[in-house]
């Protein structure tokens, strides 16, 4: 295992830029997820690491070695493809043995390592089956075993869970993470599913239109988003356009004056406030608001508030049936309260807010 470094890695196709100066350091044994909407350049980045796409600029370093000009077969990366890409004409055992064969490893050792790899993914005794005789989940585990058996310096996963059904996906997610931690695999993982990224990765890289918007742990991204795009992409968030008005207040375009964190980020034009950090009450402190809709979601209830023309969504655990809160209905006057430190002022680019037209 080794480290992986991307140094100002770029890829242009004619006038369009697919990946723009991506910098990233993946430590030994770390799992980093590249996360972003489709077309954000995450897969292109992964394929540049594997060597399938030559970069237009920048460098790829694996275990400190510059491999930017090395062809795919010389990079010692182990990749799991979205379609699994098993060799359909070879048995499971031959599939897993292929990489060892290419490395000129003797038959006896090859057989031992294939058996171990198959045991690792709980496919013992399946070596003589053909890929098409296996279920989707089993095929995926063969792909994992095939990539891992060669002890790659870097483990690459391209949306490996997207072809599995929801129940299996949660299971395999856990399994891959356990395997990765046990073997100490340096891993780069591409996904568009934020839940997948949040639950599996040590750190996440949020990409958008070829650029890295923010790199950090799940908590970094959720609690301290760098900009309005990240705030809106990771979890749910109220994003209100407007301008800071004196220290500790923000004037939303709708007209409401909202308390917020005192020190705004430079160029801040958006207030970001998580729905579950807003308390809705009928008495006490808070800004007066009117309930527009109340949506019962079982464990939680979603309140759409109207603060004198400024819309705000609040989510709270559903109150018990005995509680007066349970009777709240559209049209009721309520008070919305939050800790000003929870309301962050963030910079935003055109297109960052869902209602913006980019």
């Amino acid at each position, binding site marked *: 295992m080794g480290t992986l470094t991307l140094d100002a890695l770029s890829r242009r196709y004619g006038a369009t830029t697919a990946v723009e100066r991506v910098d990233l350091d993946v430590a030994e044994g770390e799992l980093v997820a590249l996360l972003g909407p489709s077309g954000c350049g995450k897969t292109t980045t992964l394929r540049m690491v*594997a*060597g*399938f796409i030559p970069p237009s600029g920048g460098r790829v370093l694996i275990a400190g070695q510059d491999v930017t000009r090395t*062809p*795919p*077969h*010389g*990079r*010692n*990366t*182990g*990749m799991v*493809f*979205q*379609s699994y*890409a*098993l*060799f*359909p*004409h070879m048995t499971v055992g031959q599939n897993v043995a*292929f*990489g060892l064969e*290419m*490395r000129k490893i003797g038959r006896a050792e090859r057989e031992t390592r294939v058996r171990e790899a198959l045991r690792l993914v709980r496919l013992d005794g399946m070596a003589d089956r053909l890929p098409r005789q296996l279920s989707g989940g089993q095929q995926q585990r063969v792909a994992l075993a*095939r*990539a891992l058996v*060669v002890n790659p310096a870097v483990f690459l996963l391209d949306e490996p869970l997207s072809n599995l059904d929801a129940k299996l996906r949660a299971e395999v997610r856990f399994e891959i993470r356990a395997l990765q931690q046990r073997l100490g695999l340096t891993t780069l993982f591409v996904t568009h599913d934020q839940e997948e990224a949040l639950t599996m990765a040590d750190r996440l890289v949020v990409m958008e239109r070829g650029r890295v918007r923010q790199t950090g742990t799940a908590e970094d991204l959720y609690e301290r988003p760098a900009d309005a795009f990240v705030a809106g992409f990771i979890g749910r968030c109220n994003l209100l356009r407007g301008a800071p008005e004196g220290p500790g207040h923000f004037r939303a375009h709708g007209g409401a004056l909202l308390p917020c964190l005192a020190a705004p980020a430079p160029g801040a034009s958006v207030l970001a406030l998580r729905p579950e950090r807003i308390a809705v009450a009928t008495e006490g402190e808070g800004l007066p608001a009117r309930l527009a809709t109340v949506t019962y979601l079982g464990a939680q209830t979603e309140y759409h508030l109207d603060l004198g023309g400024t819309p705000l969504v609040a989510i709270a655990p559903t109150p018990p049936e005995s509680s007066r809160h349970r009777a709240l209905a559209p049209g009721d006057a309520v008070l919305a309260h939050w800790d000003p430190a929870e309301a962050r002022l963030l910079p935003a680019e055109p297109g960052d807010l869902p209602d913006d037209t980019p």
Partner: protein
Amino acid sequence: MAGSHLQRGLFGLAVTGAYGLVLAPVLAVIVISVFAQEIVSFPPEGVTLAWYANAWERREFARGFVTSLQVALAATAIGVPLGTAAALALARARLGGLRGALNTLLLGPLAVPGVVAGTALYLFYVRAEFWVDDDIKGTMAGLVAAHALLTIPWTVRLVSASLQGLDAAVEEAAANLGARPLTVFRRVTLPMLRPGVVAACLFSFIQSFENLELTLLLVGPGRTTLPVAMLNYLEFRVDPTLAAVATVQILLVGALMLITDRFVSLSRVV
């Protein structure tokens, strides 16, 4: 319900009719081959295998059969690798605007009538004989080269179809595991194209084996192929010997198809 019964009945009738139309000449040939009388007429005067014996005894059919077999095997052995390479280039190489033109060119021999292609080749061979100062027309090599030309469009079509269904990620996976480009081709691409290549071999063989029009202009004395030998025979006699030869040919091609289908499902590639 009555309407749907009627519809189904009519459909069945149409299907039976279509099959009948396609199979009638083949069946007629097989039936005629055992008729006893020399001039075909109904009802048959008797049933005999004498025509098969006659065909066997006439040297030109046996020799023609061997020549056809040699030419078809050689043409397939040359044309299929060439056609496969061409299909790969069409699918993978950066050809830009040339792709369409090359594709049309490679399928060309299918569109040109055999007699026209034969004449063109004959004239070309006459000219070429000056340049190389050796015989081409009437030689085995000249004939094989012409037949290889016939096999290329079929191969390009069939292998291209196989290539389209091939997931490029599988080849990338092999490269990722340390296989060099040539190894990827040998160990992964080619085996995955196997159904297309096997079908291409079969169709190329049949194309060459039964070709008459192109061959007619290029055969030399003593190098007659089976279809040409049959045509020659027809000039002097019309007895069922030809039907006997044709029946053997039909059975051979049918057997080849059945055997091939056991290895690759032909309906999947064609």
